[in-house]
């Protein structure tokens, strides 16, 4: 009965293919056709330009608070690019670029942030969950979706997004644990952007990496340069392939940086130094990918302009949305509207129509009921 070291053959890989200087490790480079590379770049540019446009729309009061993605375009596009439409995408609240790639119309995203619940409605054939705001709580949903796909015998993989802050939540650990035990086809994408509002990663976890947290749950974890779209794509594709092949879940930690605010209600100058931001601006995922495409002679002229036009069109459609009908609030509470909601809806309708005060009775006085107090004969 000695004291032994249970030397586990665990390891955590780190993957980088295209560094911030534009140096490429050609041996690791994915064999993506030119069309895919152009599409990736365009989607990243769209994510960046829309983000900038949305900040202005928010400042003008045309949309409400939202969480910008600036700096995280490669983490999002490299990962979501590995999915097929029949796979499932489970976002948190900072995945605008990935959501647009998955088919969410830009105007729907704008509607969502303008306070319209309609903005959360996926298309009937879309295998995407709507934005989830409570941190990390979407991760068990992803595991449940993956279990259901496996139960039905469907060939579908689920990809779930979250940030570094979410890895402190119980739901993150429970989701990884269930995914490991159930061996389901799910890929966890952590966008480690270094800051959970004002709390830096070193105050969030004492682990050297987030990727290594997977090992405790019996699944592989890999850390990638999250500003290198090629590295993110390679890691995501491998994880998706493993999941398709029945080899279970994977955790991918994309090391990236939130170049902007947490949300438009946040002022990061209160908690982080401008030098740190400036250093990460040197690692901008768009700059290096653009240089890479330039070298490959795949950079198209006017991408930015076409993207801006697409955004402008979407903003026009968004602003043509009719005012929200207050009575619609009762529509999707239950499959069938129960009597008390019907009564409340009628009250609201009457109020809007006539300025009548909410009705005194949720239900009418029953017909044939006893007479008023003082008139009836009581036994006592």
């Amino acid at each position: 009965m000695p004291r032994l070291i249970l030397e586990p053959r665990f390891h955590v890989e780190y993957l980088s293919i295209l560094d911030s200087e534009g140096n490429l490790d050609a041996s690791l480079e994915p064999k993506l056709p030119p069309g895919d590379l152009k599409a990736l770049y365009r989607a990243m540019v769209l994510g960046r330009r829309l983000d900038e446009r949305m900040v202005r729309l928010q400042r003008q009061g045309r949309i409400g608070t939202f969480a910008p993605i600036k700096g995280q375009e490669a983490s999002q596009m490299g990962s979501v690019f590995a999915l097929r439409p029949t796979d499932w995408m489970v976002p948190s609240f900072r995945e605008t670029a990935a959501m647009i790639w998955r088919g969410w119309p830009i105007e729907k995203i704008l509607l969502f942030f303008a306070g319209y619940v309609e903005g959360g409605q996926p298309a009937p054939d879309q295998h995407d969950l709507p934005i989830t705001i409570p941190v990390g709580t979407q991760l068990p949903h992803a595991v449940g979706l993956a279990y259901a796909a496996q139960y039905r015998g469907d060939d579908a993989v689920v990809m779930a997004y979250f940030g570094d802050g979410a890895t402190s939540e119980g739901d993150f650990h429970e989701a990884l644990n269930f995914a490991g035990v159930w061996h389901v086809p799910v890929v966890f994408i952590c966008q480690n952007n270094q800051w959970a509002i004002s709390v830096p990663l070193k105050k969030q976890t004492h682990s050297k990496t987030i990727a290594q947290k997977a090992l405790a749950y019996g699944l592989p974890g890999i850390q990638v340069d999250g500003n290198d779209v090629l590295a993110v794509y390679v890691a995501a594709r491998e994880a998706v392939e493993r999941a398709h092949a029945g080899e279970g879940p994977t955790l991918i930690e994309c090391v990236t940086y939130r170049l902007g605010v947490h949300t438009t209600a946040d002022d990061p100058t209160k908690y982080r130094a401008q030098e740190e931001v400036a250093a990460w601006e040197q690692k901008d995922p768009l700059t290096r990918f653009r240089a890479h495409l330039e070298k490959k002679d795949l950079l198209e002229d006017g991408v930015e302009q076409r993207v801006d036009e697409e955004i402008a069109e979407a903003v026009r459609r968004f602003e043509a949305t009719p005012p929200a009908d207050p009575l619609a609030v009762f529509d999707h509470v239950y499959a069938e509207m129960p009597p008390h909601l019907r009564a409340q809806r009628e009250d609201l309708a009457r109020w809007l129509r006539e300025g009548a005060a909410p009705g005194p009775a949720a239900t009418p006085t029953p017909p044939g009921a006893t007479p008023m107090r003082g008139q009836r004969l009581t036994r006592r």
Partner: protein
Amino acid sequence: MVKALNLALLQEMERDPDVLILGEDVGVDGGVFRVTDDLQRKFGSQRVIDSPLAEAAIIGTAVGMALYGLKPVCEIQFSGFAFQCFHQIENHAARYRMRSQGRFHCQMVIRMPYGGGVRALEHHTESEEQFYAHVPGLKMVIPSGPRTARALLTSAIRDPDPVIFFESKALYHAAKEEIPEESESFPIGRAQVVREGRDLTLVAYGAMLRVAREAADVLQAEDGVETDVVDLLTIAPLDRETIVTSVGKTGRAVVIHEAPKSFGPGAEIAASIMEGTFLHLEAPVRRVTAHDVSFVGFAREKANVPDVARVVAAARETLAF
């Protein structure tokens, strides 16, 4: 009542391959109260899942399964532990229909044993239906015996909305009743008038229904009072029509529940009576409930949970008003 619940699960699983069960100890062990007994042997471990011990992920993964189109029936071992998954219930199960504007919904049942009377520890005796009854998008059901348990669990599994299904531990083995072999379902959202009278309305549910019925017997025998007894069955959406109709007839009401008094179902019922039939009231609506304390220990439970004597006393005061 355990056997009646087991039968409902068995018949619904035979009827619909999308129905599956998950929870702690629900498989090999058949659940700590044996409600899921033998179902894993019949339907396999993929359909009757012994999950890891984590309430939030039981409900969270069930939400994901329901979004995919399955119809999970989750067991939370005791309702006192459900606060570890309350966020998944309130933030997600109850809201997905609204959040996705009808694209997704959570057809799922969350079963939990609740209530006192079984000499149990803290977190094993509470009655906390008010939390769920307050959440838009949820349905909250509490059967009062084997037949209503079987019929309502069947309805809950078939219901397109998430249903919180409380099972009284005091009734699990004590309540015995003949039930039909053929599957039967009662509508969710409808109370039953289980005894008719013209002098007084008693409103109760779950284990308190027996207390209400016995109190009605005492009032009949000793006072000659005829009592309407309303078995609520569904806490939310509340069947205001049945309550208001009854109180409109009797003019007097006593509401009984095991949950703490303040902001409990009794408050909503009293307000609904006021809104619905104020001019027919002969006396203020009385509430006989547990006190506003969190946990008393079973050595003091009798002083906290309503019993027949307290209900009779409250009824007599109401009648004498």
